């Protein structure tokens, strides 16, 4: 088959979503953000939501999410994205509002905001990128950093006597009756990315159906912060992160129901 035949539109098997623009991403090669951005752009396009979507960008590497996904965005202060999303969603109940937050943002400085937004059952989607580290500031310990894990502020490994325990905040979120769908996914393999897309699609549909807060954790890598190659980081994540943060749905119910887990 010659090249002109291959590139004919009818022979196209895959195309980048038009909602994801062509700007060169600042994310490191191997970073999970790129995959999650791509999936969100695809879903916004496939579900016809570009004109009613408002994204809330966090502080951290994903602060520049607004550069890549072609929708209206607000950039929130560190940890405050759920409050900002509340303001947008309450005043524009017909819009689809989502936050995109890292583990330092959501599970440390923004703990109060995420708990209460979920507890109120705000009609928003929360995407929680958990890579166990503060990536943008240079690889410091996050609340989700595993025991013994070396970071720039735990050079001898996380010591639970000194630093406390890695926080499974998604399990806490699942307890809150304001949430309807709480799941933990990953994006390190093609299969995981497909599952993640299905989860995000369900979560978005829940928000459109006004079922309360949907919360999707993505166990992620930060190969630069972890000082590993992308492949090694994926392997390390599979071997170390996934046993502590196992994948799967924690809650799939109606708003107002308590989780038993």
């Amino acid at each position, binding site marked *: 088959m010659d090249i002109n035949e291959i590139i004919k539109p009818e022979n196209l098997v895959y195309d980048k979503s038009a909602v994801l623009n062509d700007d060169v991403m600042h994310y490191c090669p191997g970073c999970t953000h790129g995959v999650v951005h791509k999936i969100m752009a695809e879903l916004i396009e496939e579900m016809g939501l*570009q*004109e*009613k*979507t*408002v994204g*809330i*960008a966090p502080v951290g590497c994903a*602060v520049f999410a*607004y550069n890549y996904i*072609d*929708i*209206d*965005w*607000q*950039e*929130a*202060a560190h940890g*405050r994205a759920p*409050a*900002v*999303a*509340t*303001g*947008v969603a*309450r*005043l*524009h109940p017909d*819009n689809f509002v989502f936050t995109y937050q890292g583990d330092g943002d959501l599970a440390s400085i923004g703990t*109060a*905001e995420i*708990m*209460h937004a979920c507890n109120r059952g705000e009609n928003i989607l929360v995407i929680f990128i958990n890579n166990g580290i503060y990536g943008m500031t240079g690889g410091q310990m996050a609340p989700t950093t595993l025991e013994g894990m070396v970071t720039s502020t735990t050079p001898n490994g996380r010591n639970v006597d000194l630093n406390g325990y890695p926080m499974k905040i998604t399990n806490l979120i699942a307890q809150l009756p304001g949430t309807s769908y709480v799941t933990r996914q990953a994006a390190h393999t093609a299969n995981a990315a497909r599952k993640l897309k299905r989860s995000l699609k369900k979560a978005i549909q829940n928000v459109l159906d006004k079922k309360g807060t949907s919360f999707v954790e993505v166990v992620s890598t930060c190969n630069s912060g972890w000082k590993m190659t992308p492949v090694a980081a994926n392997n390390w994540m599979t071997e170390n992160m996934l046993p502590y943060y196992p994948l799967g749905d924690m809650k799939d119910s109606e708003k107002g129901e308590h989780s038993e887990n």
Partner: protein
Amino acid sequence: MGEVRLMKGNEVLAEAAIRCGCDGYFGYPITPQSEVMETLMARQPWNETGMVVLQAESEVASINMVYGAAGSGKKVMTSSSSPGVSLMAEGISYIAGAELPCLLVNVQRGGPGLGTIQPSQADYFQSVKGGGHGDYKLIVLAPSSVQEMNDFVNLGFELAFKYRNPAMILADGAIGQMMEKVELADFKPRRTNEEIEAECGDWATLGKPKSRKKNIVTSLEMDSDIMEANNLRFQEKYKKLEEEEVRYEAIQCDDADFVLVAFGTSSRVCQKAVEIARAKGLKVGLLRPITLYPFPKKIIKELARKAQGFLSVEMSAGQMVEDIKLSVYEAGSNARVDYFGRMGGIIPSPNEVVEALEDKFSWELSYGVKRSY
């Protein structure tokens, strides 16, 4: 004549918000301003005008809800008192940096720290000099009556949208808690989606139609040249505010040898002090800044040509006195500027003010001329 009622300052803030077509209020309880949200919740404006009222989990959250809602083009507000406003400082800085219009209310109480629930004016610096991080200014309105609590809600929103800048009503516990006769404004409908689109469509996050580029509400800029240009644009805006939006009230200042300068509750005390001093034969006037930022520099410079002295009367350790000194200095006048005030939630009495004037300006009062150094 509009509807006249006897109301608390805090209650009037709520009523005025509903009547001026406010889209949303986000707040957190704190004395002495909790009646604002209580009144709104009792009034249930969502049934009447569609206004959203939400009790947030903290002042940190409420100011960020304001940020989100204001960023989506809506007319929204919050209210708090001093410790709560300190918590909001981060969010206010982001709002100013993203150039969003909104209304903030600080019903001040005494500090520092948890301080006292009694009235104070000690958040003057925090309000007029920025308060949070970075170079920014708020439009600061200082009501001295329940009527002005009513009037400044609408005025605050108008100025906020005109300049795309947060506006603040800087009241105190006395103005918030006291009851007075107030003429309420007539009901104004909330803006329609079409009106919001027309007014804010080029910057607000309303959802991106095919016809325009995405709108991004942010205060972040990594390119220093652009960030400096942004800052210069903010400074231009503040300069325009200083040129066009100064508001004040001058009472018996025309022939005044001595000018009391006071805002809010202390200005009411000073009105009586002017009467007492005049009865004693002293030519005393009162300048009441209504906008604390932009500060009424020009009128102070004019008065400084003639007056022998200015006495800044404040319920703080002396904050506004610095701005008066700057204005007098800029006028090249040798009029003397002094301060008298009480703290800890104590409101000075009119007689105390007159005594302080006689004490601090005894030289000028004895010789009848400006003291030179």
